[in-house]
């Protein structure tokens, strides 16, 4: 009887010797998590909407023709693959854009398009309409400012 008891005891030891580890390996119940929803964006009056990006405030004076001419060259080199002035192309026609959006919004759209389409209601609306995302052509702030000046001559 004693032997029987001892045998069972040894068997139990063998059977349970890996038990603690097995217990540890039991995966924790996955936590229920709320799936993040796409952020709802607030629509703002376009002529008050400065967009999201490095440009916080621009003061416009008289049109600077030299600057606009410089902007025309930059626009031709970096933008015309997708934008025309008078014609909808890959992106919207840009005639009169400075009458529709603030200068800050326009420059932020040029300089920070990846963030704009996610965080700005108007930019996202344009992405939905045109499907092609605005490409970041790595313009400097000065270059974007010159392009803005060129747009001011195209109203």
């Amino acid at each position, binding site marked *: 009887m004693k*032997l*029987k008891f*001892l*045998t069972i005891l*040894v*068997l139990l*030891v*063998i059977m349970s*010797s*890996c038990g603690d*580890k097995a217990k540890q390996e039991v995966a924790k119940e996955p936590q229920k998590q709320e799936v993040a929803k796409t952020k709802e964006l607030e629509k703002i009056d376009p002529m008050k909407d400065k967009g999201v990006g490095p440009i916080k405030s621009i003061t416009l004076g008289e049109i600077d023709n030299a600057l606009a001419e410089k902007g025309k060259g930059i626009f*031709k*080199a*970096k933008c*015309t*693959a*997708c934008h*025309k*002035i*008078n*014609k909808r*192309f*890959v992106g919207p026609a840009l005639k009169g854009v400075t009458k529709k959006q603030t200068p800050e919004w326009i420059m932020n759209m040029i300089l920070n398009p990846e963030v704009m389409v996610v965080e700005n209601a108007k930019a996202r609306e344009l992405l939905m309409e045109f*499907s*092609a*995302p605005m*490409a*970041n*052509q*790595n313009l400097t702030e000065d270059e974007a400012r010159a392009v803005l000046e060129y747009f001011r001559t195209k109203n």
Partner: protein
Amino acid sequence: MKTIFKSIFLFAIGATFLVSCGPDTSKKSNKGAISGNAAEKVYIAPGEHDSHYAFLSGGFSGQLAVYGLPSGRLFRVIPVFSQDPEKGYGYNEETKPMLMTSHGFIPWGDSHHPDISQTNGTVDGRWVFINENNTPRIARISLETFETEEIIEIPNSAGNHSSSFVTENSEYVVAGTRFAVPFPQRDMPINELKGNFSGALSFLKIDQETGHMNIAFQIKMPGFNYDLSHPGRGKSHGWFFFSTYNTEEANSLLEVNASQNDKDFIAAINWKKIEEYVANGGGKKVPAKYAHNTWDDNAHTATSVMEKEVLVVEPKDVPGAIYFLPTAKSPHGCDVDPTGEYIIGNGKLAAAMTVHSFTKMQKAIADKAFDGDAYGIPIIKFEAVNYGVLNQPGLGPLHTEFDTRGNAYTTFFISSEVVKWNVKDLKVIDRHPVYYSVGHLMIPGGNSRTPDDKYLVAMNKITKDRYLPTGPEVCQSAQLFDISGEKLELLLDFPTIGEPHYAAGIAADKIAPKSKKIYRLEDNTHPYAVKHEGETKVVRKGNEVHIYMSMIRSHFSPDNIEGVRVGDKVFFHVTNLEQDYDVPHGISMIGANTSEMLIMPGRTSTIIWEPKQVGVWPFYCTDFCSALHQEMQGYIRVSAKGAKTPLTYTLDGDIPGTDEE
């Protein structure tokens, strides 16, 4: 009943010894002593970066593979000596000249020993050099663009193996011949090798601004096999050391006939002395034919020039510049410790490691402690140069690298292990098995005065059962060790491409911050570049049709072309107008007898298409570039030979550039 229980009891007792929670310990024998936190030491969390780059030779793939350490993740395979259809390397018109040689265009190479440029004896992350063994060449790769910028062929050489190691200020990169050959090549009986063949050791000067290489001089050495080499550093800066085998000068069954001598040599070359000799008009310009291919990063185009002569130096003309150090036996690796004092011959057929002393060598030279000469080159007496011998550390030593604490790490091919030993004390400290048959090993900065000695990568020649089998051919294998402690700690196995011969490693912060992101359109000087869509056009010149095409998310301009005829040679000169990081576009043309092109932002590349059948044939972007990638396509109408279809090209119905406003 009692007996039954008795037997169960006995069985149970036995079983406790046998079972003991198997997985934890039972496999320990073939995994090495992996300690509990090895996984933690190599784990790089998603989005985090590795601490080191490792450039592993792609061996017979001809390329150079870039890994992260400690994760062992493969980042990129840089095409160097072999065509790479994925990137268009060696297929597009711009890169084809990179693979030109004196034997014509060669689509493949056998890459061997990467080495990173140095400043003051420390790896500086400007360039990585790598040699091609089969058709002797040295390549230079930019560590800003991770692209091959220059390849120079080495004349009078064969089996370019004791290459491409750099001196401590990147003054030179060397190329030594493994196979003795007639110098210059000529038609002669093979069995007259002895005394008639030579071994060229080439010193390539590196321009410190551009990195451009040129062969400053070739030393015409006796016809031994020059196997590996390393530069002197610190006190021995100005010297270079090459191991030799087949000093028997056998021309057949070398495995027997080149293993007769108990000692071969390490050749010690005072390159500063030879440099001075050459600067004073020494050496002789002899005719030679070798290709020199350079890449222009503004024109995005390579140029191949066939060079016509090389400056040759005969050892006898520069007395006091070259010596032989007797070294056991058919030494493979020839390694110099960080202080520059110890020169180590890894005598692959010997039971001992030979450690020579630079200080003793200088004294022996001053004392003329010579033991005769070989072809006029003095042989220093073994005892006069030898610091000591490490007896029986393992079987088949091949290569040694160093830490900053006076220790050496040597690979043993036959006994499949890495052995850590103290150079000064000549005592073994630790040994660790590797799986299997290790060749090279690498400690970041290993060929420098300042090894970055946390990790060691062992590169194994045989993989066998280490990974899931993939048929008869299995991947090559590397193993990562932590060497920061007293004991070697095996952390990770990771697969590699080709058969890696050596590697070079460097801290990531020496390279990552200056890694190029885009090519500026303003700087693009490619003759067929378009700077904006308005410049895109199609021009016919006889039967050549040149398409000046642009690409941007997500269209080509022009994308409708008519007037191409069977028999035409159509050039796609394609510029990626994007100026944003990580927005390459690809282009492929149905029926083109070449690869796709993968074009980085701001870059121009060219492929040729020779249409053979009439029809309307599409082309498309091969690299998923935006949500409208599937729409990025175009058509070319091909008419019969002699047809009168007018040449037109349009985008959205207009000639590009006519409607910019």
